[in-house]
């Protein structure tokens, strides 16, 4: 009898122990890209040190934002990563909470622009990218964003659709080249509309541009630095423009869900992701450009990233509130003038 009791209690204790380990669960929501690399570099090593379960949800920003909002009162997701303007949209919907940066030991290592891009510590930048113009140096010369519409590029240039993350920043820089940096983007949208017959396409996927360049369908297009890899390998004289108005780009941030059930784990995970070691590995795998200023990579790797204090300092990023407050108006303006 005693034996049976003892055996039962041991079994019970073992079961309870298992249950406790399974209870430690962190749920994150991330972009769907490069998940194999993230698993190897971030998720698996983190699971090994936290002794917890890590549930990864993926999807596009709209789906993930909708999910966060739907589960507002009983959040399932503890932390998420998204673009600055989507993160601000989430904050305005009341689904996120300020991050206590004193709990992130790697916070001070971040570039200044990544430290508090949304204000009130509603998000911490973990990666960013430059947007400029990729072009055929043997065929055209690009020194300004306005050069996209030079005669040599008539019928040989692609432009990002306003619906993409590259679209509004590229329009903003085009506006600057025209001497008009108003947030309504009316002037650059008018400029694109008046040249629309000379623009091969308004692309929606970066991969599409690389193919068009390879086929010599186009000779220039504004692209994000994260998609530069294939261009540098093309058997063509490809160049990355440094326009006199500067380069633009975008940033992704980490956010903490309001009422997150596993806040401690979420902080531990964010800090882990921001650490020099992990940010270096992600950079070396060409997954994300580092927001941690202590990351050092080879010149060859740096070539494919948005890297270095000087580069980061000169990025002219559209503020997230400007994107969020104007996005719908830009789309209407674009559809009315360019889309038809």
């Amino acid at each position: 009898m005693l034996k049976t009791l003892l055996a039962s209690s041991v079994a019970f204790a073992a079961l309870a122990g298992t249950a406790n380990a399974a209870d430690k669960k962190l749920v994150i929501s991330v972009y769907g890209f490069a998940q194999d690399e993230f698993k190897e570099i971030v998720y698996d090593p983190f699971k090994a040190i936290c002794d917890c379960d890590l549930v990864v949800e993926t999807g596009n920003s709209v789906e993930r934002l909708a999910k966060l909002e739907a589960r507002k009162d009983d959040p399932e997701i503890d932390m998420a990563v998204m673009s600055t303007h989507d993160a601000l949209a989430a904050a305005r919907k009341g689904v996120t909470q300020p991050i206590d940066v004193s709990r992130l030991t790697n916070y001070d290592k971040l570039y200044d622009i990544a430290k508090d891009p949304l204000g009130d510590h509603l998000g911490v930048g973990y990666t960013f990218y430059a947007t400029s113009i990729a072009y055929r140096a043997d065929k055209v010369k690009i020194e300004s964003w306005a050069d996209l519409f030079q005669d040599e590029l008539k019928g040989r240039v692609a432009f990002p659709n306003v619906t993409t993350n590259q679209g509004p920043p590229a329009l903003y820089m085009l506006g600057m080249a025209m001497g008009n940096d108003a947030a309504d983007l009316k002037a650059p949208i008018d400029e694109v509309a008046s040249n629309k017959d000379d623009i091969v396409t308004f692309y929606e996927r970066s991969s599409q541009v690389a193919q068009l360049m390879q086929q010599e369908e186009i000779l220039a297009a504004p692209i994000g630095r994260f998609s530069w890899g294939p261009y540098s390998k093309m058997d063509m004289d490809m160049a990355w423009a440094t326009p006199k108005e500067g380069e633009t780009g975008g940033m992704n941030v980490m956010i903490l869900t309001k009422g997150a059930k596993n806040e401690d784990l979420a902080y531990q995970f964010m800090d882990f992701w921001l650490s020099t070691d992990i940010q270096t590995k992600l950079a070396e795998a060409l997954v994300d450009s580092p927001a941690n200023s202590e990351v050092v990579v080879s010149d060859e790797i740096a070539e494919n990233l948005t890297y270095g204090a000087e580069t980061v300092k000169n990025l002219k990023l559209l503020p997230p509130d400007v994107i969020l407050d104007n996005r719908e108006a830009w789309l209407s303006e674009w559809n009315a003038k360019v889309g038809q």
Partner: protein
Amino acid sequence: MFHNRTEALALAMPAAIFAAIVFLVPVGILLSEGFRAADSWTLSAYTGFFDNELNRVVFWRTLKLGALVTAASAVIGYATAYAIVTLPPTARGRMIGLVVMPLMISPVARTYAWIVILGRTGIVNKAIVGLGLSDEPLRFLFTETAVFIGLLQLFLPLMILSLISALENMPKDAVPAARVLGANWLQVFLKVILPLTKEGLVIGGTLVFTGSLTAYITPAILGGSKVLMLETLLYQRVTVANDFASASIIAMILMVMSFSANMLLKRLATARSKR
């Protein structure tokens, strides 16, 4: 087969309940979004949708391309299907295999292939420049022509297969009989083949038309935002503007267009056979 109606209904019930829960209810909820105002039901979202010039342009373009692709696939489909059914059985099997083969390749791969074929350095432009028809390569990509070609290639097999099946069921001596009685080929087609294969045409036409209306990949890749269609507009409304109300209106319009096309084709087929 069944002892009574109740038994048959009971057996069908699990599938019916499953379909209702996972399909009809969500579709109903989605479509009702377009009729919902703050506290009431209204049609204003629909009238508002058609007040917008871009939406009207996109609607007519979708309808036009759908109709053109259906008409072109019917013309090519009849010729191909007739040629195939007159072949000996072995050759017929091989030809049907060739028709089916593209359906086994992902539409994404097939559409990307058109980017290469229709590009400045593609085979079509090389031929045009080589034959001296133009000094410069022509631009096909990101035009309605490219979307038309892509959709036609995508859905033509469905029309051919429907027509092959209809033509195989047609009495073998109907065409020779009509010819012997002095009918020319146009009369044979209009008075004999068409009435006897109308069911195949209705099925093929519905598949091609609804497929063309609801295809997303092909218009997105070959047309891009320069040739917006209702499907690509729907995607834009959801992913960029997070505007599910407009998306549900577009979904409803697409469904109405599909049902209307099916009814119209059936009506045309019936009218012809009554005459």
